[in-house]
């Protein structure tokens, strides 16, 4: 019995040692700045780190549809709300959940918007499971994501506290003025059929929603227009699932005349992603909804937020709308 206890203590002891080493190496190898030079992956998605703490009202998390189709600067100009898009190419919901955890470390958003295209990121059950484990490990211990930084990191940097200096004026939006219209058939043909949301995705989505609710943050499921990646079956699936969770789902692929959307002028790549014009239309429409449903403050005249006005000027120079 004594020997059994001794062995158990050893197992826990060694595991604790290993975890301590992993935590220390995570600290040492994690990028100390959210810039490309600082070594962070996807600097624009992580730009919220360098926004003053607790200044972001709305966090938008999703894949390329999110960073192409949502414009924080238009929302600022139209409504005075501060939003940041943390979008990653082909992001899964597990990765979205991991991103949410990072956002909540430094920001206290009142609303979190989850773009739902990631509910259907094509991958097998096994790949999905791997992505979930990968995202969880990566968000808990950054050494799994940034282990290769041992090549570049300087000794003095190892124990330095993070200091985030990266500034992203469009607040995570990928600004594109390209126009490559979509002239094909209508893709949202009404049907009663429904696509299937993978179990692993549901698990991550539920964790996402629960985290927000625990912190009293409003959650919104959003689908921005995308001809090539969306259809009515997916709409039905997300609508049903959102109802089950008690989450509002806004599908902007339906009734697009509400916000004067035009596939010939509002997409940069023939119907997959939106350009700056399309993003503007979608964001202003959403802004109205946010204004009606959430008690958000207009910060445009607040001196603390004067940098946002400068950023808008920057944005306006680049966005040819």
């Amino acid at each position, binding site marked *: 019995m004594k020997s059994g206890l001794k062995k158990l203590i050893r197992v826990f002891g*060694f595991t604790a040692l290993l975890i301590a080493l992993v935590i220390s*190496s995570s600290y040492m190898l994690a990028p100390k700045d959210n810039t490309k030079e600082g070594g962070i992956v996807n600097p624009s998605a992580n730009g919220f780190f360098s926004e003053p703490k607790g200044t972001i009202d709305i966090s938008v998390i999703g894949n390329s549809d999110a960073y192409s189709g949502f414009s924080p600067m238009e929302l600022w100009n139209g409504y005075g709300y501060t939003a940041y898009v943390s979008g990653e190419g082909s992001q899964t919901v597990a990765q979205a959940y991991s991103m949410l955890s990072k956002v909540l470390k430094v920001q206290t958003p009142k609303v979190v918007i989850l773009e739902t295209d990631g509910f259907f990121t094509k991958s097998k059950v*096994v790949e999905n*499971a791997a992505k979930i*484990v990968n995202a969880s490990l990566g968000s808990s211990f950054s*050494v799994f994501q940034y*282990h*290769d930084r*041992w090549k570049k990191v300087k000794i003095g940097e190892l124990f330095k506290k993070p200091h985030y200096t990266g500034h992203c004026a469009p607040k995570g939006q990928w600004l594109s003025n390209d126009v490559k219209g979509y002239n094909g058939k209508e893709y949202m043909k009404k049907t009663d059929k429904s696509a299937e949301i993978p179990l692993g995705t549901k698990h991550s989505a539920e964790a996402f929603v629960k985290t927000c609710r625990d912190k009293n943050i409003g959650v919104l499921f959003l689908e921005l227009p995308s001809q090539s990646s969306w259809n009515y079956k997916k709409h039905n699936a997300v609508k049903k699932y959102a109802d089950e969770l008690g989450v509002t789902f806004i599908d902007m692929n339906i009734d697009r005349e509400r916000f004067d959307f035009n596939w010939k002028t509002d997409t940069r790549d023939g119907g997959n992603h939106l350009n700056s014009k399309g993003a503007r239309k979608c964001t202003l429409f959403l802004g109205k909804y946010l204004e009606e449903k959430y008690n958000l403050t207009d910060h445009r005249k607040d001196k603390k937020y004067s940098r946002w006005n400068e950023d808008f000027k920057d944005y306006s120079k680049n966005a040819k709308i």
Partner: protein
Amino acid sequence: MSYTSYNYLLLFLGSVLIIYTAMPQKLKWLVLLISSYVFYLISSGRLVVFLVLTTAAVYFAGIFLNKINDSFAIAKKGLEKADKKLLKANIAWQKRAVVAVTLFIIFGFLLVLKYSGFFISSAQTVLKLLHLKPKLPFVKFILPLGISYYTLQAAGYIIDVYRGKYRASENFAKVALFLSFFPQIVEGPIGRFDLLADQLYCGHSFDYDRFTQGIQRIVWGLFKKMVIADRANILVSEVFGNYNKYSGGVILLAGILYTVQIYAEFSGCMDIVIGSAQLFGVEMSENFEQPFFSKSVNEFWRRWHITLGAWLRDYVFYSVSLSKPFMKLSRYTKEHMSEQLGALVPASFALFFTWFGIGFWHGAGVKYIIYGLYYYAIMMVGMYSEPLVAKAFQTLKINRNSLLTESLRIIRTTALVVVGMMLFRAETVKIWAGMMVKIFISFSAATLLKDSLSCGMDKHDFLIVALGVAVIFAVSLLKEKGVKIRESLAKQKLPVRWAVYACLALSVIIFGAYGIGYDAVDFIYGQF
């Protein structure tokens, strides 16, 4: 599902071990069987049907052989010697027929699925040479996971039963588990029924020492695969894919690094496999025994992929050696040739089939056959020139067993292996020949350092690979000298042990070539 993935290590292996430990003794085999089939279904989907059919074929053939043997045992009682002999001959014919049909079925799957494309393209080439314009269909099947391994295991089982080494199992689950056990299904080691089946079936209680040893072995395997092999792959795939761009020195470096990669990867995989099996109390055969300390190519192949070599020795070499035509040849050479040649000629005849088999087993292509015959040719040169070499050493009064001579023999063997590995890795024999020519005509030591840093690996990568190789070399050297490293380490004080284990685990996490910026590299031998 790769053995280095989180899915395998954390989710699959972890949950199977917990369920296995929690199950009553009698049902533990069921956990292994179900999990093995789940593993197979996840990895290979519907192609599981070939594994089931192969299992069924050898199982029923084994039962049939048992029945034939039993009926012979009853029938022979009270028979005269002559009648007994007649009956035995009849029985032997029946048994041969059963084994032949079974082997035809199981190797039929392998030949059709793995080699039909090769056969069709070869037929097409022959018909073109005859000035015919053939329109043969292009056929390429998806290979079921581990078919080259479980087919050999299945064949070994039925041949052993036929030879009377043991009685066929009447328990279908036992045979199914023997052929499908998930740690070994991807790359072997090629197991033997009499060594493995009972271990798998009987069920083992949780054992702390076995558990820690299994985990240590898995981490050691991950170190070899992820830190060394996958990092070396960066330069290897670049240079082998575009050899024309590079100087001879870089091509030689790529050949050496590929040899490092394939050894670290295959032996690393075996460490993960053996470690995984150890967690369930199953001891599997070793597949490597410090092959790069071999003094001859012959010895190298006794230490490299040991279970394949042993399988070919037991079921091909001996089968050929003991066949009637071979015995006739052997008698003829002994009568008509010198004593030495009389022994060598039949052996070289039997070895031809073994080496042809090794080459052909590795892949459906001329390149692989030449790969096998390359080693066959080296061995033949060695065997036939041995008397001359021995005489030369004697005349020159050089001690063949001195440290210097032995070291030179090791270097020579390694060089020959590197050339063989380059043939194995090159897309075609023509490309391999081109690479070999470039090594000799455009070797520039002056630009080697600069050139080698332009192939995807930076100086940090080289440093890690070099340190990793140094660690493997040190461990191999100690093992070669008879030091039992794990036992020695286990005797050290706790802080020393923990420091070693923690360093190993942490080096995999930090220096492993995985994640952003790295392509996942499939196990090379898993593709056979």
